[in-house]
């Protein structure tokens, strides 16, 4: 029933509602009219520091560049930096500090896959957008979560699919020998490798080995007996060295292709295998757009030297993974630009889903989709003779997509 007091009450309720509603709309965490706060995290200490220290520096220098150019829709990027030590508990603590205490708008971090997976549940529950750095972290990307984006270097699955594509299209292999690990990472790269082999109508002969294997004779003899046309080595660095050495000793002369996670240091690889003759028919997978140090990537290394002259003068810098920080920061910036000036986390996530751009740094485009949260799926290949690397033309992409298993 309407009374004389009804309009008064309605006005009072409206005023009360507006008191709560207006700030709620304006108060996206980490956002002011002049700034966007981003939580940048990765390993800044501990034994795994090399996976992320310079990757974070690369992201930071890219954000500095954007700020110097005027920011995004009038907002400057402010960074809140945390060390995750590449450790699951520390990553969760870092993420919680950034989200709940520092009140960042979005997260940009993680260089180590196992630690990154630890943060998944919390990030999904909190709804904060998270774009990883160089962690492959298939475990956090599949099944896709609404607000988590990653694999800016390459996912394990894309690594497996891409290397098979190279063997088929470049080396004309019909029967492919594939050595991976018998762990979760091995299962992931094998899943896409099998898909790509089936799609290309070639055979894949698989030998899965323990990551701590010390004698690789048996799996190699089996693959030699299967008369494979090419040997794909998707193991970690130490078993990969054993495989190359043993393949040479067994007189295996067919092409051998080392996956990106099988190479920690090419010089060390060459020294540990021992003989230069073992590298007569060896290729290595690379996820950058070109050889490290090439003209195409010169701008990244130049930017690093300008931004961090002291670090750049040290012998171990920039670290090998440094360029991987650029595409991740680029994706953050592009999604912020696409989301528009009336920024919200929901708009940012929608914009991130639609990203599709060439970073100029990685082998393939950075592209997400409604059901795709792994950014980069291509790689290039380099012929390696034990000392020099020569680029093989073209890039080779994985076609595996998540089908909701």
């Amino acid at each position, binding site marked *: 029933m309407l009374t004389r007091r009804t309009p008064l009450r309605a006005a009072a309720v409206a005023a009360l509602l507006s008191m709560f509603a207006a700030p709620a709309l304006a108060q996206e965490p980490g956002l002011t009219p002049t700034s966007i706060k981003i939580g940048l995290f990765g390993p800044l*200490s501990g034994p795994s520091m090399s996976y992320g220290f310079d990757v974070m520096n690369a992201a930071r220098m890219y954000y500095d560049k954007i700020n110097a150019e005027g920011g995004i829709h009038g907002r400057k990027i402010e960074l809140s930096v945390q060390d995750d030590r590449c450790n*699951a508990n520390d990553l969760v603590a870092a993420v919680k500090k950034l989200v709940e205490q520092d009140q960042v708008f979005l997260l940009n971090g993680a260089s180590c896959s*196992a630690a990154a997976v630890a943060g998944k*549940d919390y990030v999904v529950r909190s709804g904060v957008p998270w774009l990883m750095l160089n962690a492959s972290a298939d475990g956090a990307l599949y099944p896709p979560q609404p607000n988590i984006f990653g694999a800016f270097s390459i996912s394990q699955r894309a690594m497996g699919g891409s290397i098979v594509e190279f063997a088929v299209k470049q080396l004309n292999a019909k029967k492919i020998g594939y050595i991976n690990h018998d762990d979760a990472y091995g299962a992931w790269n094998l899943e896409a490798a099998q898909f790509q082999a089936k799609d290309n109508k070639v055979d894949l002969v698989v030998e899965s080995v323990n990551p701590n294997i010390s004698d690789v004779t048996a799996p190699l003899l089996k693959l030699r007996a299967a008369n494979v046309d090419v040997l794909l080595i998707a193991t970690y660095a130490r078993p990969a060295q054993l495989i190359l050495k043993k393949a040479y000793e067994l007189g295996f002369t067919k092409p051998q292709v080392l996956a990106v996670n099988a190479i920690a240091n090419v010089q060390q690889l060459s020294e540990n295998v021992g003989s230069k003759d073992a590298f007569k028919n060896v290729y290595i997978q690379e996820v950058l757009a070109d050889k490290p140090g090439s003209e195409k990537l010169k701008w990244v290394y130049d930017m690093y030297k300008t931004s961090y002259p002291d670090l750049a003068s040290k012998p171990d810098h920039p670290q090998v993974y440094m360029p991987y920080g650029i595409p991740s920061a680029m994706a953050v910036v592009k999604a912020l630009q696409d989301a528009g000036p009336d920024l919200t986390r929901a708009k940012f996530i929608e914009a991130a889903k639609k990203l599709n751009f060439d970073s100029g740094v990685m082998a393939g485009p950075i592209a997400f989709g409604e059901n795709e949260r792994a950014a980069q799926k291509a790689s290039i290949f380099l012929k390696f003779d034990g000392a020099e690397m020569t680029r093989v033309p073209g890039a080779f992409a994985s076609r595996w997509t998540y089908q909701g298993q």
Partner: protein
Amino acid sequence: MIMNPITNRQVLDLPIRESGAKNRNRIISGGALVVALAVLTVVLPFVTSGYVIYIANLLLVFTVLSLGMHIVIGEAGQFSLSHAAFYGLGIYTAGLLNNAFGLPLILNIIAGGLVAGLCGLAIGFLSLRMRDIYLALSTFAFGEAMQWIFLNWTPVTGGPNGLNFQPAHLFGFTFLSDKAAYPVVLILALVFVAATFVIHFSTLGRSFRAVRESEIAAAAVGIDVKRVKIFAFALSAFYAGAAGGLFTTFSTFIHPESLGFHTTILVLTMVVVGGIGSVSGAIGGAIVFGLISELLRQVPSYQEVIYGGILILFMMYLPRGIFSLIGRR
């Protein structure tokens, strides 16, 4: 250095009872600290962020872990370097039971403690045949072997990909945040603290300490040394396993890398720096060193140097532990 006159071996340097006034002052300062901590723990969720509560939850778990190590090393005087393995057994048992059967949190924690306790029982039998550095190496080997199993038994533990758990639940309430889990973690941690004090003052606690000081003298007064040593290992492992179960209250993921020797060393550091042989030392060591570790994360470039420096200073100037300042209990 104090020597045992019967065995001619070095014994733990326990403090001599001090004068009444000094003792009273210490009791008052200790009591004030306890009251301050009690108030802080109660008001914490209302005045701070989820991040701080997450750290508080972790510290409470480490407190239970430290108490477990205190029982075997501080009370019973036995070397044990496999605490991270027992902790891991507790986490995996509780998490897997929750995933498979959706059991309530308390049952998962008890199961985690029991599985770890049974393994501790087996290690306890080792202690009958070895001592000192040999026992330390054997328990270290067990810890390493368990981490290898956590890393490689992929179908069960998730291997190097780690293992996700369903959020824990109790009486129909699911723990989806650190703040929601905090009261339960706090209450259960306090239960373990109380139990440790009860053990400390019980016949069992006195038997532990008798064995620690001299197995021969303990046997001479009728203590079954073998049984006491085995029980110390089993009880210590139960605490560690239960701490693992407690961890699943607020965390839904575990990776084997978190269960390596460094975790055992961290807990050992907490117990030693807190004050070996002291219950309050084990608690204080866990809180102080847990906090130091987290605070040092904010200064990544210097944290290893600062951490090492703090440890050396503690050992130099407070060899009986932080809590020797306020009492030994």
